[in-house]
């Protein structure tokens, strides 16, 4: 594979810019990245059926009527506590739904509840990632190459922006699952970025013989081989969850799969292109 990573930098930046702009537009239009049900008020239903009923049955009843319940907790095989995140005026509709379903013991209790999580969690996570990015910069300085460390720092930020943009374009709401995915993809991107700058640092001696651009291309080729095989391995592991599971697990698998694809390609292309650009202005390898 003799792919010229650097030559494609214009296309990469155009594509990245389009993704980020689209992400921003979808965010501003309220399509994606707005706070989801984890951070919203909801309705708590306590229902006691006369006969035992499966959770799946309750979930299906709600699904058929366009309600989603992420949390259905059994108290025993007849009594359930269900959290539905919908408007307050739907309370009676949900109540009637269960009355129609089957014989109910006693009253169905329906109460509004406050959100379980506060919105500042997401901001805290972003702060944490910023701390992590600074740490990545400091760790990269071990190679005694300021440009490499800067590339690692900017690539990590760029990865985060692209990941958030993709989440936003796909209409994903901010949830606890999303915060988990963002941290996981960030930590994984640390591995990818360090692998790239490590390769570049090792191949530095080749600059004299093959030139700067070819050295970068060679390093990216070596790093991308490992990154792509690892990406395939990760996607294979997630495929089961995406196809067979439901709820939070499926959502996590989708977010992780999209996040991993974005950061794998972004790490390779962004770091290479950045190195080439920064080299033109600051580096000794002109």
């Amino acid at each position, binding site marked *: 594979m003799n792919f010229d990573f650097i030559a494609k930098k214009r296309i990469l930046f155009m594509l990245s810019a389009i993704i980020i702009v689209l992400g921003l537009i979808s965010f501003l239009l309220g399509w994606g990245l707005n706070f989801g049900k984890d951070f919203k008020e909801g309705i*708590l239903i306590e229902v006691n059926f006369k006969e035992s009923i499966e*959770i*799946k049955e309750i*979930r299906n009843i709600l699904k058929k009527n366009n309600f989603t319940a992420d*949390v*259905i*907790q*059994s*108290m025993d095989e007849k009594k359930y*506590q269900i959290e539905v995140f919908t408007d307050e005026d739907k309370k009676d509709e949900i109540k009637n739904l269960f009355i129609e379903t089957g014989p109910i013991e006693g009253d169905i209790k329906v*109460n*509004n*509840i*406050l*959100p*379980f999580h506060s919105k500042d*969690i997401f901001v*805290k*996570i972003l702060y*944490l990632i910023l*701390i*992590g990015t600074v*740490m*990545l910069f400091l*760790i990269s300085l*071990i190679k005694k190459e300021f440009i490499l460390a800067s590339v690692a720092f900017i690539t990590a930020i760029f990865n985060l922006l692209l990941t958030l943009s993709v989440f936003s374009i796909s209409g994903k709401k901010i949830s*606890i699952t999303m*915060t*988990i*995915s963002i*941290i*996981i993809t960030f*930590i*994984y991107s*640390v*591995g990818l970025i*360090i*692998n790239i700058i*490590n390769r570049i640092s090792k191949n530095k001696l080749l600059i004299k013989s093959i030139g700067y651009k070819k050295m970068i291309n060679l390093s990216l080729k*070596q790093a991308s*081989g*490992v990154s792509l*095989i*690892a990406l*395939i*391995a*990760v996607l*294979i*592991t997630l*495929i*089961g*969850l995406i196809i*067979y*599971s*439901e*709820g*939070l*697990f499926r959502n*996590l698998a989708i977010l*992780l799969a999209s996040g991993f694809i974005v950061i794998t390609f972004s790490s390779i292309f962004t770091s290479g292109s950045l190195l080439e650009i920064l080299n033109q202005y600051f580096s000794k390898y002109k």
Partner: protein
Amino acid sequence: MINRFWHITIIILFLVIVAGAFYLIYPPNEKIKTGLDLSGGIQIILSPEEEQSEDSIREAFLIIKDRIKRLKVVESRVTMDESNRILVQLPKINNLESIISVIKNRGYLELKIVKGIDVGLKYIEKKEEESPKAEEETKDKDKETTDEGVKISSEEIEQTTSKILDKLKEQLGEENIKYEKISDLEFNLELKGANLQSTYIVILQLTMGEISESETIERIEITKYDPIYGDAVAISGHLKDVKPITAQRGYQEIKNSVILNLDKELEKRFKSLLEQNIGDDLSIVLDGAIRTITDISEETIPAEEANLIYIPNIETFEEAENITTMLQTGTLPINFKIDNKIDVGPTLGEDIIYESLIAIYVGFALLLISILIYYRGLGLVSVISLVLFLILLFSLMTLAKVMLTFSSFSGIFLAVGVYVFSNISIYEKVKEELKKGRSITTSIDFGFKNSLNDIFYIDMSIFIIALVLNNFGTKQVKGLLLPVVIGSILTIITLFTFTRSSLLLSAGFLQKYSLKPFLRKNVS
């Protein structure tokens, strides 16, 4: 030959460690603790003891939320419904009751001067023999009895009471004792200036011994033993800092305590409280219960304003931490009662957990099959070492008391991702060496040697960043990143001990039987 022996030793040692680790997590459903989202827990519903304003309930709700956030419980859910009930869900943990008390109790701490003790005593009559024969005999003799038992004569009560009073007068002086008759069998004593602890021993001695040998008195019951408080100063709301201090063993054993750093205003009030009450006792009272009590004398008053107070002699460090949490978060404005305490199922739903578990097994099996297909013979070693890596990871997580939750499951996924990434990095290096025309054994040896620095650099970077974020992060982040922290170290250990030695041993076998370590198209 020496190398072979060395590799076999490493493999055996590694397997012994894994066997020990496996023992730690077997049976997994008992040893690996799972969280509220995966296996359910307890739901407590708190409601105000009396009708309260919406604002004070909201304030209490925020305090309770803050307390739970500070507690060491990995996972919890707190919300409030429109009926002003606060719903708290906690995983099934050992110290559940103490956690509930931290959530529910007000956490009101005050300094109180103890002026004396209010003691209530009651004579308990001896019970009649309960055998039917004895009952009949009693009837025959027409002896005066009550429903409770043999009636005590008023003379005997008078004699015993004066005996108690005389002994107390000896101890405390007549002017400090106030007697009040409540009923024929019951009386109260107000003991001014009495020491709370030593007086209790005296009263116990007086109400036992000779009196219990009386013909009609079974015993004397202490119905109340309450301190009589004088001046009081609230500590809550005047604390700059609160810290738990762990017990110290040594020449003088010191139990766990909580250190309170007072603000300037309380410093002044504390000193003047001591100066105005010399000779009395000073108590630190938490939610109405005395935590500690000391004498106030000229010597105990500090020359300057004192800004530190200790709550000493706390049985466990966990209790000290719980008190600290209560004091750090502030006093609940209202008293709560537990309306309902019930077991609840997993928040993720039993059906979804079941389906997801199958999906996880399928995903993991697909990963192992892919490794086997892609890396062939050497992939088998990877598959085995990945399984061993997971056993070690789970056992270390169990040792570190990491609860398995949705969040920590995600962390395990990332740890496996890091492991697979590192493994692929090494194998790709081995492939590069094979391309150079080296033998399998030499390629594996060189591949590992060349990638040691890279893997160490990558995994240690992940380790350091995950560790830093784990320290700064919320509870959820901690659950998520701890498996990554453990996993990044385990990756290096597993790959460069078991995997390397096994590969080098199996490489000889592969070479001997002319088996290809990788797919043909990958190595030209």
